[in-house]
């Protein structure tokens, strides 16, 4: 059975494996690669990673399920993580998030009907002095208000490549054309 991750990212896989004396350590980096490639970690993605690392797919899936940055269900092209933890909430993050959800016309955790945006609230992102803030595809956007946010949303709707994250721990992951 074809392994799309092994076929498309051989150099990256070789480099990643060379970093660790135990190949199991590569499960986290490879889950990111599989998530970037497939969009989310479905069964085939899990099995590809398990196959490369000679791990039980159940163990790989347990890793994917444990961490918030691995997504096991479909998501929009732009994955928004808005911090509403205490320090951000003290500087207006709850109100900002409420307004953002209204703007996108979705509830917390949902994806917009055009498939563009998935929006979730998350715990502290390490940017407490620039609240309200969020990460879009793991890139920081800080000191936000709804005016700036609407401009960002429009920019990304116009060109989704502007919202994709091309950097993967220093090694370029091919950015798929939308």
């Amino acid at each position, binding site marked *: 059975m074809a392994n799309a991750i092994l076929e498309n990212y051989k150099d990256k896989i070789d480099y990643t494996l060379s970093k660790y004396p135990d190949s199991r*350590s590569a499960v986290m980096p490879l889950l990111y690669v599989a998530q970037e490639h497939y969009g989310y970690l479905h069964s085939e993605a899990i099995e590809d990673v398990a196959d490369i690392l000679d791990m039980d797919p159940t163990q790989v899936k347990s890793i994917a399920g444990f961490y918030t*940055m691995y997504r096991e269900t479909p998501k929009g092209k732009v994955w928004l993580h808005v911090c509403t933890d205490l320090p951000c909430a003290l*500087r207006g993050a*709850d109100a900002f998030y409420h307004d953002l959800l209204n703007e996108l016309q979705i509830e917390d955790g949902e994806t917009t009907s055009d498939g563009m945006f998935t929006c979730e609230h998350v715990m502290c992102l390490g940017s407490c*002095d620039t609240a309200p803030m969020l990460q879009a595809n*793991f890139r920081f956007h800080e000191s936000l208000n709804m005016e700036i946010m609407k401009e960002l949303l429009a920019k990304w709707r116009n060109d989704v490549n502007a919202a994709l*994250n091309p*950097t993967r721990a220093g090694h370029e992951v091919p950015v798929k054309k939308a």
Partner: protein
Amino acid sequence: MNILFREKEVANVHEFDVYAANGGFDALKKSLSMTPKEVIDLVKASNLRGRGGAGFPTGVKWSFIPQNEAVKYVAVNADESEPGTFKDRQIMENNPYQLLEGSLICAWAIQATAVYIYLRGEYWEVAAQLDRCIAKMQEHNLAGENILGKGWSCPIYTHLGAGAYICGEESALLNSLEGKLGQPRVRPPFPAQKGGGLYGEPTVVNNVETLANVPWIMVNGADAYKSIGTERSSGTKIFCLSGDVQRPGNYELPLGTTMRELLYTHGGGPKDGRTFKALLPSGASGPILPLSEETLDMEMTYETFASKGTVLGSASFILLDDTRDIAWAASKMIKFFKHESCGKCTPCREGTYWMDKMLDRVVSGKATSKDLDTILDVASNIQGVTLCALGDFAANPVLATIKNFRSEFEEYLDGGKVTAIHAGAAD
């Protein structure tokens, strides 16, 4: 003074050539001309304490590593996830080579095989920058093979987490790095011991800020470092200010500086028309400290915070002013711990779940006075009985807030008050 935030004195110190031209790598060169034991003794003598929160003496931790083991590791804890903490990110973004140099000096001191920098997954691009810096150091024989021609090789690797506060706990970090679930280990054996570290090998786990202090200490000496701060709290500390303050941000100040100076001179004081009510000094994990004229005069050291029944910890200062509802703040913090509990230990897994449910009942006006007693009972039954400190910390947002601000919780009882608490609730 700027031991860590050198970008305030040297523009573009994040660039290799600038770092190298401004004393960069002098500490590494000096360390490699000393024996590992001499380096450990110098760091011990400096009284440097861990800056991640526990404040454990750094040189002492390094000295626990058995010298005769063939394989040893340095694991840099860049998982920075405590609410209100954003200091390590600034060090890595603006002064990355100082962290890398400090990590290698630690590696030399314990004769490590490799350095792994475990960054929280959300610092994705910070990791990419560190990779570029490491590659640059390798080009100049300052990392990787045959460092400085001394025949000692030590690669530095970055490794990304994927969104789990628990992976900042040193043993959970090691499990995560090994490709296992990020859950803590039974100790002993401790990470520094054979069988307790990364891949079972003796390992030093140190915070980013801790290691970033090491180059300065090597070059300037232990006495110079001890001349800053107090006898038991040497050096500078980065204080992260967030919440109800005019100028949130990171402030590097000598330990022993007064809270008044930090909050007013640097932080600009409370917002217009408001007064400071309370401080959470160590993010969500440390007991809340009511602020008064007396506490504002405190000299900020590990020992003074302990004497007040709280902890300095990571110095992640979340400020709450007189308009803030402490019960609401407690609920926010418990939601954090409930989300981040890894699930391994029953008291933490069940306890954080039930504290969250009960605080929801409080802020929706449905609780009675008996419920407050039950919450306190549940909280105190989590402390001291879990495999890691997350359980201990998770009880503090309840125990310390109800102890110091009980009346604010009592306002809600029997339908006295209601506050919406879900994420996305308008202010």
